[in-house]
């Protein structure tokens, strides 16, 4: 049966967003023949949605900025749960990664003296975000895309073939990472257009598939965000780290219903936008948590002065980290002080002239004008929290981006865990993509070159199993297994509703237990998800296959969230409302219950995921020394402080 097309590559990158493309560029530049596989067309990855900017301590806008300050901000934002070595590397290398983009043709907005302009963002002490209006992600993806094309042009000159050393397989989906014993041997994939299966044999695979937002109903994420990479890693035997931390961006559109969840960039607040409730009150002043008390303004006047004179005033609380703002909005709406469509008001119209708004926030202006009939230069926007980002992800080695426990598997970008701790700061995502995308590509290429003469063979049996698994939805009806065939779209909607209602922004023990039961039920029904039609570009089939991944990842989120009995960053427990220092150094690791990567035999009630706790490495003393003692006592347990 395994007469599927096979090709040999050195490095296969799954995902063509910022991290994937950066990894591919690095691997190719280090001499590895590199293949990129992506579900969408080349250049359409979710990275294009990023609006605000790339955080990098280049000190163009404020000369006091440096990597240490950036590191501090990142750790504070993540409530000290970050894999600190990642945060360190990230803060150190981000400026180089941004500057490098300029040499590939990127055009950022400029300062008066011709350097890269930097803007303010939540949680960042100084203006730090390199940006292009409010379409920074588009600039990033296009630059990387064009760099890939540039490399292909070089290869064409040399070999006469654009794709001899770097090839993009667009509109293809990977369903399994193949292994030879413990190590990676390639990937099994299908072409969306034809439904044809193929295998890419490669000793190193970089997973850069992004996030999991499509498991939630209200989300800023696109359909691609079905947690594929998380699931591929789990199925390949790698653990996922701290999956309970899901970031709800405070400002998504709330109306009309069809656009609910679409992102409203944080730049709106960075540039002066304020949040008000239905009483017209700037409520954020009531929600400054103790750990941030010294850093934020106490009065509206002081907050307003900060935009002009940041050295002598403190920033307005609208620019608190995202988790704080999202919770505050949630609380206001619950208290009955929300806007007509269940959000709060975000207003720039009274803060800036219309002309300035249109220039600095062009896509927001158009988004509201065209999708909601709202003119943001004349009236306030209605916004509310939307599922935006998962901090948890594949557990990786900080320096090499290698997934733990599976030699040859690497992960970078949103799919990798650890970097952002319990909450990501705005702007740190794009820099994360670049820093760790490069590192993943680099180490994957090195690893692959080390195996150049003893490439792990691809096991035919695994290919057959993977093919059978992918074809299953077509025979679901015929098998008639304990129930009627199910509609994949319906199952997906139920899954989204479940996660939204029961494992959403505010979590309760009982609800999460209920969620686990519903997930078990959905898992069983998903086995009967049938497909109409044939294999050629069939979205129903694609969704049926993606359901496996979403269900796996959702279970990870729910189980980890149930386990962590505290509130921290992107994980808020109503029944454990405070941050607990004892949890500060605890990681939760999810692994597949069946170590062979099988799913079928698993008991539906017990689930497919096993959870383990581990204690994190102590933060290196020189990094700890960057913080004041008074601040550290708020986060770290006594014994950690005196070590």
């Amino acid at each position, binding site marked *: 049966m395994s007469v599927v097309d096979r090709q040999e590559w050195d490095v296969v990158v799954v995902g063509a967003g910022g991290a994937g493309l950066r990894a591919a560029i690095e691997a190719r530049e280090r001499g590895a023949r590199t293949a990129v596989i992506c579900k969408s067309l080349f250049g359409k990855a979710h990275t294009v949605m990023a609006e605000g900017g790339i955080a990098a301590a280049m000190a163009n806008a404020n000369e006091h900025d440096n990597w240490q300050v950036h590191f501090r901000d990142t750790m504070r934002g993540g409530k000290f749960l970050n894999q600190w070595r990642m945060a360190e590397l990230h803060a150190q290398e981000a400026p180089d990664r941004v500057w490098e983009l300029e040499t590939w043709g990127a055009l950022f907005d400029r300062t008066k003296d011709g350097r890269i302009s930097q803007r303010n963002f939540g949680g960042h002490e100084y203006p730090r975000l390199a940006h292009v209006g409010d379409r920074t992600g588009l600039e990033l993806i296009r630059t990387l895309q064009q760099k890939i094309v540039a490399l292909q*042009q070089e290869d064409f000159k040399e070999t006469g073939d654009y794709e001899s050393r770097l090839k993009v397989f667009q509109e293809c989906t990977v369903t399994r990472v193949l292994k030879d014993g413990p190590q990676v041997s390639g990937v099994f994939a299908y072409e969306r257009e034809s439904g044809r299966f193929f295998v890419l044999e490669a000793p190193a695979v970089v997973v850069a598939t992004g996030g999991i937002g499509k498991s939630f109903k209200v989300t800023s994420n696109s359909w691609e965000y079905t947690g594929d990479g998380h699931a591929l890693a789990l199925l390949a035997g790698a653990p996922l780290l701290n999956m309970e931390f899901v970031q709800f961006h405070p400002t998504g559109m709330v109306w009309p219903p*069809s656009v609910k969840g679409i992102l409203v960039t944080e730049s709106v607040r960075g540039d002066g936008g304020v949040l008000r409730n239905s009483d017209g009150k700037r409520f954020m002043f009531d929600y400054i948590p103790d750990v941030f008390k010294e850093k934020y303004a106490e009065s509206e006047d002081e907050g307003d002065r900060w935009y002009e004179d940041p050295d002598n005033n403190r920033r307005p609380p609208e620019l608190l980290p995202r988790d704080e703002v999202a919770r505050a909005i949630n609380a206001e709406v619950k208290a009955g002080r929300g806007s007509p469509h269940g959000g709060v008001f975000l207003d720039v119209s009274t803060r800036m002239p219309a002309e300035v708004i249109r220039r600095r926030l062009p896509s927001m202006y158009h988004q509201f004008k065209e999708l909601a009939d709202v003119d943001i230069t004349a009236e306030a926007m209605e916004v509310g929290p939307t599922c935006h980002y998962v901090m948890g992800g594949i557990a990786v080695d900080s320096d090499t981006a290698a997934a733990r426990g599976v030699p040859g598997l690497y992960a970078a970008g949103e799919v990798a865990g650890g970097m952002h701790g319990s909450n990501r700061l705005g702007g740190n995502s794009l820099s994360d993509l670049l820093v760790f995308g490069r590192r993943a590509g680099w180490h994957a290429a090195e690893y692959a070159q080390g195996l150049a003469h003893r490439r792990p063979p691809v096991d035919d049996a695994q290919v057959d199993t993977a093919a059978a698994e992918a074809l299953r939805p077509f025979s679901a009806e015929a098998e008639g297994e304990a129930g009627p065939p199910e509609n994949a779209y319906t199952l997906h909607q139920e899954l989204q509703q479940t996660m939204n209602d029961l494992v959403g922004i505010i979590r309760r023990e009982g609800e999460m237990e209920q969620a686990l039961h519903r997930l078990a039920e959905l898992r069983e029904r998903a086995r009967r998800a049938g497909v109409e039609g044939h294999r050629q570009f069939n979205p129903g089939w694609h969704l049926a296959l993606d359901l496996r991944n979403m269900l796996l990842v959702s279970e990870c989120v729910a189980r980890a969230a149930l386990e962590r009995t505290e509130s921290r960053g992107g994980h808020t427990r109503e029944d454990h409302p405070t941050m607990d220092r004892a949890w500060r150094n605890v990681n939760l690791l999810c692994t597949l219950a069946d170590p062979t990567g099988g799913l079928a035999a698993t008991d539906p009630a017990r689930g497919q995921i096993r959870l383990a706790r581990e204690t994190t490495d102590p933060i290196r003393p020189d990094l700890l020394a960057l913080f004041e003692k008074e601040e550290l006592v708020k986060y770290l347990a006594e014994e950690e402080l005196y070590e």
Partner: protein
Amino acid sequence: MSSYEARFKVWRGDGQGGGLKDFTVEVNDGEVVLDIVHRIQATQAPDLAVRWNCKAGKCGSCSAEINGRPRLLCMTRMSVFDRTETITITPLRAFPVVRDLVTNVGFNYQKAREVPAFVPPAGVGPGEYRMMQEDVDRSQEFRKCIECFLCQDTCHVVRDHEENKPAFAGPRFLMRVAELDMHPLDAAAETGLDRKRTAQDEHGLGYCNITKCCTEVCPEGIKITDNALIPLKERAVDRKYDPLVWLGSKIRRRTP
């Protein structure tokens, strides 16, 4: 909130043939055409093929033709149509169809490869780039492009003349040439690459008869014709049809 039933004709088929199929679908307040396509998928035709990603007009995936006009499905609100109107949705008609609303847009990726990349200036390291805002404004406008390829689809040069495809890069990629030619630090000229000349000689700038359909369909509102194509034509004139410039270059070439 009021919902109603709307009538749709959606092209279904593949490279072997196909036709418009009728659907009657519920429409709710504030919805866009893509919502309706999704509803058709979820309730009536689960295998209806359509490309989409962000649903916010940022990725340029869901390009199709609605009532004969190239548009993004996600940015076309249902409220612009009359409730009694039958709305026709077809795939892009300038590219080979794959299935239903999905076309093979490989033409565009091929053309992208034919435009020589940005050439970094020699001797300027990363972090040393200095560019003034007014010098990057023009190229930044073109870099707003989300590559939805609606301009490539509507351009009659290739839409109505398949045989022109090899010779003509299309508005999107002529704009890319303009973007690079206006990039304040692009050093192509120093390496002997004259983008003004190649725009005409290799990318088919002369095929463009500036009928502005590309500008009309651009969902990003980029003034493709006025700000990219015509300036590029004028730059080509500088090179090829300006006798003074021609004479000057002859003389300069003789006395190196």
